[in-house]
């Protein structure tokens, strides 16, 4: 579902959820705003097919990590707003810890050149 754009970074499996939760950690956003935010925050480093966000959001909703509600955007359009739940915050914290450990370990290995 996630396709890597030309000359762009590959989004690691399982990291999209953390990315979405992180994006929502600043406050409720609708789907398009999430997509735009990720695009901007990563300087468009990841080229994700924009549609791919939505099934992922629905899965987070089903797992109770986010809640959704219809609302109206600043431009007056109806949109579905997502909000992080308590469970979502916990999940985000644990996802971040895992990510940092992963990055640190990779960095150590790659810097020293030892397998």
């Amino acid at each position: 579902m996630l396709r890597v754009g030309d000359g762009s970074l590959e989004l690691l499996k399982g990291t999209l959820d953390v990315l979405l939760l992180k994006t929502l950690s600043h406050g409720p956003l609708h789907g398009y705003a999430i997509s735009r935010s990720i695009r901007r925050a990563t300087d468009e480093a990841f080229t994700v097919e924009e549609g791919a966000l939505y099934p992922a959001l629905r899965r987070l909703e089903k797992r109770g990590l986010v809640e959704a509600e219809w609302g109206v955007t600043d431009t007056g359009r109806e949109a579905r707003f997502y909000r992080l739940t308590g469970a979502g915050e916990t999940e985000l914290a644990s996802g971040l810890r895992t990510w940092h450990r992963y990055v640190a370990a990779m960095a150590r290995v790659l810097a020293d050149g030892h397998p």
Partner: protein
Amino acid sequence: MKRSGRTGDLHAGSVLGRADVAEDVRRELESHLAQRAEELEAEGWEPEPARREAERLFGDRDEVARACRAVASSHRRAVRRGVLMDALWQDIRFGARTLLRGPGFTLVAVATLALGIGATTAIFSVLNGVLLRPLPFPDPQQLVLVGERAPQIPGAEKMRFFDTPSAIQAWREQATDFQAMAALQSTSLTLTGQGTPRVLDGVRVTPTFFDVLDAKPELGRFFVPTDATASPRPVVITDALWRSAFNADRGVIGSTVGAPGNEVRVIGVLPANLRIEGSELGPMAAGKPTEFFTPFEFGPDFGGDLTSVWSNFNYTVIARLKPGVTSGQALAHLNVIQANLAASAPDKAPGMTLQGEVTPVLDYATQGSRQGLWLLMGAVGAVLLIISVNLGGLWVSRIVDRRRDWAIRMALGAEPGRLARQVMSEGLTLGLIGGVLGMACAAAGLQGLLAMGPKDIPRLGQVQVDWRVLAVGFLVSATAGLLTALLPALRVGRGDPHEPLKATGTATTAGPASVRSRQGLIGFQAALSTLLLAVAGLLGFSLYQLMTKPSGFSTEHAMEAKVVINSYGRAERDRILQQIAAGVEAIPGVQAAGLTSHLPLQGETWVDAAGVPGKQYPPARQPTVNVRFIGGEYFSTMGIPLVAGRNFRESDRPEGWPPKNRADEERMQEAVIISEATARLIWPERDPRTLVGGPVMVNGLTPTIVGVAADALDGSLTSAAPAVVYQPYWNWDPYAFSLVLRTALPMSAIAGPLRAAVWKLAPDAPIPEIEPLSSLRATATAPQRYQFTLLMTFAGLALLLAAIGVYALVAHSVARRKKELAIRLALGAPVRTIRGLIAGQALAPVGLGALVGVAAALAIGRLLRSLLYSVHPANPAILGAAAAVVLLAAALACVLPARQATKVDPHVALRVE
């Protein structure tokens, strides 16, 4: 944006229909595309290319939508479940709080519901244990009894599942619908050497018996073909006998027990959970415990008549159908075999035909108790219905009293539907609490109910509270609770908030709708009470008829004792029979004693052909009589008068007795005494007294009639006195007999000397029962008394509840109409008129209800007929009395509140806001 409440609330985002999910997803994706295009346009794109670019960047829209829908749908289902449970839980908590605020009503409701549900559960557990619980064997529905029907034989309809060896052998060879088949016959065994001699009831079976049941032994083994002729006879015993007689000793396998000359070898023990009741094994073992099994075979050593098609109907066949074969198919094939058998019979009889019968074992075992149990179930269900309706009425009046409370809640935005749901959950809560209490009481009281039960209800000893009883108990509890809440829920559900607010507390009369609905409830209760009382009355009158029906014998100061002498040889048995009556008569205080092969009221057995000597009767017209063997002063002890002739004398015993062959036997059957019914049957035109000294044909022999005895109820209480032929005891070779004695001494004083007198002659003879003769009738009417007692209890309860309902309605209406009544009184209305006005409000629906109840009793009369004796189900006196009792109870219930109505002080009443 609008903030959502907590998850699980009924907001639009959470609970969506299937179509709504698709729409929700479509809108979300469309929103994204529109905003993306907008942004691109802001960057300078033309609208149409911008839209196309937005769609390209989005990817496969259908695929994304499908994936979203899949996730969202499964989410929706989970949420919806959660929401419903949440709402229910909320309602129940709220309901519990409301109920606690009205503890009086709650207490009454829970207690009466517990009573009704407890009684319903208890009766259902009996019904379940007796009628519904499957037999404890694999694939029990395949087990059938196989029988013969010879419609031309008189009394054939009563002779079900009595089969001849010739037919059984033909079935074994030719019938292909059965996996296995076994013949059986009841028998008994005397256990001596362990204190008091004890007689065991058991069954003789062909060796395939346990293959038919598909049972495995707990200890030892079951039968193999060679066991049929083994000596000593092998026996398989039940777990209960193994424990009671052998202290659960595993070493009993292979040991020899029993009286000398009659030893048996124990070869196996049945598992504890495998209880086989006599009633499940056909007519012969019915009503007896089954404690052991011993094998036999229709082989060379059989000794009985193996070839006659028309006699020796002395066996029952149990068989297991092949999988997929129905009783109907098996019967069709069996009828063919039977027709061939009748055609090829060595003792061919013109005009006689043979048919078969195949009935599932469980149907046979429960046929006698089915109707009675369903009747009780219906009655207890009616009581529970009355309880629910009554509480519903009470509840409505509470709502009416507090209607401003409800109106305010409605005005504050509570929807009528929501309030109705609230009431229903309160009802459910009441029902479940009452149910749990009731079921606990039922489980505790069940043993009492069973102890009260007559012995002839099969499988009663195995009744228990199992999962099915619990499941039905909960279902009944929930239903009763919801039913209780139905009327009040309808009342608040249709509520118009303005109506009660407009009507201030000073309303002079109760709303007509509320009064009408409560009157309807009263009428309904009156109808059900009348119906129950009418049925109870019919059963009670039947019982009265049975208890007072002249039996032809006198039970006052008379006792009976059963003596088993099967551990003695033929000559010894004859000596015991000869001397025992005199031995018992010698006991001080005993006025007379006699013996008989069959006590009265034990059913018609030992039926033989009889008639005018030399006369050829067509098969269907052949008279049949019950043969009884008697000794000593049987007639005077029983109080059966001899209308002509005399009792047997020892000198009637022929020269050279005992007979050595058939010719001897014919010569030696010299004297009989016939009953008046026999005389009427064989010689309808002759005065019975003139028959003494003449011959009569009985079972092919022609003895001389020495006496004619008055009729006695020798068969059953529900049928007329049967034709009986009495023969002297020496023509009979019994394994057990009954002593009868007449004495003014109490049971406790006579039992010891009686045992001593018997054991002096026969030290190894078990005496399994000593009872007053009156117990014969008590035992014979036990099922009727059981039904009547329970039904009368239920009817009484229904009546009481209906009266309480009437009282509550009238009292409530008096309280609410205080002002109106005060005005009427002040204007000079006579007290009598006021009272009539108040009472009439309740008595009119009760009268109508009683009429409906009588009509219902007439409608179900046909179903009752088999439970009634000598009373027509439409007996006008009984039905009228039931209606009158209900009306009287309702009138009494009106008295107090109606008196209060006229004691209203106008000054006070009019000042009450």
